[in-house]
């Protein structure tokens, strides 16, 4: 179950930024600004995907858990699934 969630998230994001960085540049019309727009798209895709990837990989195998106050624990026990 946990694995499935991770796999889904990974593929959705990779596909999304992959389309933005790899597919959309081919559809930009020819003009004086084509080079700049393509550069912007590719760089955006790379930067944003990398940032998301670092965030999810850092949490993939946590070595310790969060320390919660007892009030919070009581509340979460009843309200979170």
């Amino acid at each position, binding site marked *: 179950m946990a694995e499935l*969630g991770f796999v889904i998230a990974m593929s959705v994001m990779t596909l999304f930024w992959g389309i933005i960085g790899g597919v959309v540049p081919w559809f930009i019309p020819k003009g004086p600004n084509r080079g*700049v727009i393509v550069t912007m798209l590719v760089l955006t895709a790379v930067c944003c995907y990398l940032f998301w990837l670092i*965030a999810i990989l*850092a949490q993939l195998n946590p070595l*310790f858990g*969060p320390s*919660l106050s007892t009030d919070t*624990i009581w509340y979460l*026990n009843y309200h979170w*699934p």
Partner: protein
Amino acid sequence: MCSLLRGEEMCLAQLFLQSGSAYDCINELGELGLVEFRDLNPGVNAFQRKHVNEIKKCEEMERILGKDILIFNIHMCYHHNYYCSYVHYHWVYVCVCSQEQLQRLEVELGEVTRNKEKLQRNLLELTEYTHMLRTTRNFVQRTSEVSYEEFPFLEKDTLMDYSSMQRLGAKLGFISGLIQRTKIEAFERMLWRVCKGYTILSYAEVEEYLEDPDTGEPTKSVVFLISYWGDQIGQKVKKICDCYHCHLYPYPSSNEERTDVVEGLRTRIQDLHTVLHRTDDYLKQVLMKASESVYTWVIQVKKMKAIYFILNLCSFDVTNKCLIAEVWCPVNDIPTLRRALEEGSRKSGATVPSFVNRIPTNDTPPTLIRTNKFTSGFQNIVDAYGVGNYREVNPAPFTIITFPFLFAVMFGDLGHGVIMALFALWMVLYENNRKLKNTRNEIWNTFFEGRYIILMMGLFSIYTGLIYNDCFSKSLNIFGSGWSVKAMFEAKVWKDADIRGNRVLTLDPNVTGVFRGPYPLGIDPIWNLASNRLTFLNSYKMKMSVILGVIHMSFGVILSTYNYLHFRKKHSLYLVFLPELLFLLCLFGYLVFMIFYKWLVFTAKDSRLAPSILIHFINMFLMQGDGVQPLYPGQTGLQVFLVVIAVLSVPVLLLGKPVYLYWLHNGSHRLGMYRGYERVRRNSEEELYLMRAHDMEEGSSHSDLSTSGERQTEEFDFADEFLHQAIHTIEYCLGCVSNTASYLRLWALSLAHAQLSEVLWTMVMRVGLRMDTSLGVFFLVPVFGLFAVLTVSILLVMEGLSAFLHALRLHWVEFQNKFYSGTGVKFCPFSFSLLPSSFEHDGLL
């Protein structure tokens, strides 16, 4: 794109301008803003230049027009102000050629002003006459009417010009008029002394002030009536009146005559008032119309001054009939330049057309990078560090994305990002609003110029805020947290007694069901509620900073290959780029690999065995692999291999290029023609041109500091080259370490922002939300106001500026010193739109 990546190709051109059409040709060029003129008379003093007189006249005109605009802006006035402006227009007309409008205006103004003065004098006379009649009626009313009716009236004596009547054989004459109040006593005394009682003077002061036509000042006048006996007395009295500048008016003989005259005067005065009013309106209209043209005249004068300045930079050729100008021009614009010269020649009606000729040069041209309104902001922040060398790679197209991204990493808050993006969006949507564009507030102008930068920063901050899961210091729980508290209870690790007993409990990921997988978009929302939040976040953000830093720097090193390939320095590719890249990747690339490896391989089960990456990294350098558990089999061997490669690449970087160039220069003597050309003075024109063109294209890279384009004068100096390369090697290797650490500011600033945000929430907003009495509702409003003000001023403005500055530093130093030299000169074309305006400085335009 080529232009933004690298800059336009420029060439040096000579313009041959016919003397008569020089002014018009340069006018055309100024309108287009294509070329930059070079000074062909550098040794000449500013005061000895050819057109210095014309420039002085232009400055004089600017001063006068400035004064005029001041007059119009402050008060649209009458009288002498009109006249002064009229004089100025006449002056300007003389200097600014062919202004028919101005001539017509001058004539009109003159006529109207003269007419108006005449009318005003007329009005004054009539008004005085009316006053006199009214006041003298009072004199007559005082005495009885009957007595005067008895005497028969004589005819009006035309010679003496006053009415008289006969009584007892002697004529009784009347003289009436007005005199200034200051003179009335002297007048009375003189009359008494001269006429010795044969006259009777009665006078009364006029209540209202009448305007003196000569001085224009309001003065008080006195109406007088002199009655006398005898002709000779009459003549004396008349002479005295002339002496004292009295205004004399005919005295009516009877009451009916008086009332008739008064009626007539009243109508005439009314008419005159109307006419004067209309004249005033007309004058005002004429001057309003003229004032509209004042601004065009100002611009014309400015253009004239600029054109004469440029003409001063040109030189005459041998025959003295033709002006020569040297310009830097983009190669793609040469046809436009030709057309502009043809247009200028046609406008001035010259028989011989002016033409342009491209000439070879070995000077480095200035750098031109064409930008639009979006890219100009980013190009400005790159240029603030240094304008790129001619045809060097321009970091600006990459900065468009990486700069806002690094800013957002440090700023990362969803709510603040939204506010920033909305502010920038407002500025962008209203960018054509004149009021926003043309204010003189420096700070606002700075923000307005960077509106696209701020928009990008805001949008990226929204994304990083989403990933950091931080919105005004609160987290969003969109997908459901990956941590479950219930599982701890179900697994019987926690019991109810534990909750009552302890204050803080820690979830254990080893227990089944507690950790259900990473949060799909960003940081898990449970960390916002945890007390050991910073322990987790610090580790995450530090590693993120190092990863981003190493990737950014590698990108910079890779960009230098563009330069080497363009300037045809293939040897640099193998001797400089490769060792640099190997050094960086073998050491810090391996560090990044270790970070990812630890994230992927070590789970909660091995948490006690999880190695510290820093210890491993240090051990790698010290070659001590045995103390700690290896991360993976074969780790020691791989690490030794990597360290050896890195260490070997240093001498290659240090010695490779100087040795290779030395060998190239001295090794082969067969290429005598090219290599030894500095000894041969006379070469054919084509060969010299080819050599110079080749040198120009070679240009200079960031490491090749000693051998610049002008190689023909110096020999290859090994010591110099070696020294430069040594400095570069040391800088690069030490820089790798320090720059990687420098990227940790990404972590530091994002931590500071998050903490400030949290403090503001806890100390300000939560205090307001916690009040649960009915008074709390009213208390919340000022609390929210305080929260909003502090958010904008501290978190948006102060933190925003701080993150902006640090992102800028990361770009300027850590990124750009891998490939960018930035020692070029910017191309400043001669363009009328770029002329500075002294009027705008004074706030007049």
